[in-house]
């Protein structure tokens, strides 16, 4: 487990937020929402691998095979 992934997720969040704001200000609300959605999906992909590891750890700890 490295801290780098956390920073990466935070960075994606910040950039997506700024991009959505910029698009919204230019009147392209749909594209802004699309960018937000894509950002959420990308972060979700990153988190899913971590969640998988976590569940494996839980299974290993309690011996649930």
């Amino acid at each position, binding site marked *: 487990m490295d801290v780098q992934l956390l920073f*990466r997720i935070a*960075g*994606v969040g910040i*950039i*997506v937020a*700024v*991009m959505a704001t*910029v*698009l919204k*200000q*230019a*009147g*392209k609300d749909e594209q802004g929402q699309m960018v937000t959605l894509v*950002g959420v999906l*990308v972060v979700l992909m990153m988190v899913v691998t971590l969640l998988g590891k976590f569940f494996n750890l839980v299974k290993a700890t309690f011996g649930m095979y």
Partner: protein
Amino acid sequence: MTLKLIGAALTVLATAWIGFQVAARYGRRPAELRGFQNGLSVLVTEVEYGATPMPDALRSAARAAGPVAGAILADAARRLAEGAGITPGEAVSAALEERRGSTCLTPADEEILAALFPVLGASDRQDQVRHLRLAIDRLAAAEAEAADERRRYERMYRYVGVLSGLALVLILI
């Protein structure tokens, strides 16, 4: 690590460049429309008061029309001077066709100019002047719309270019 850094910089530069190119297109369109308006105003004068032969009229219009529109009008004048049996409208149409990719005009803008082609140099003076004036008015409306679009989208595309590069780097790194 150094290689990664160089790659990241190149990615950001590339997407930022794409964004700036798209933004620059929005900046150039009002200037081109303004150039065509100036050129057509000169053409009105030439047709209405000068009764100048069309190649000469197009040449002097080209001088007043700025770089992009001027190049198209000058090209049309050249085609008209050397091509046997084409109308001025056909000459402008061919010149416009040849530079389609390099201008920032939308199909709607080209439609305004295309409405002129059947009339240019092929009907009486009042009719030509009326059509030219109409085209200038419609170009002015298109220019106002283009300026509005520029105000809204020019900065947005720059930001989106740079930011999408940063996002890509963050995701890939």
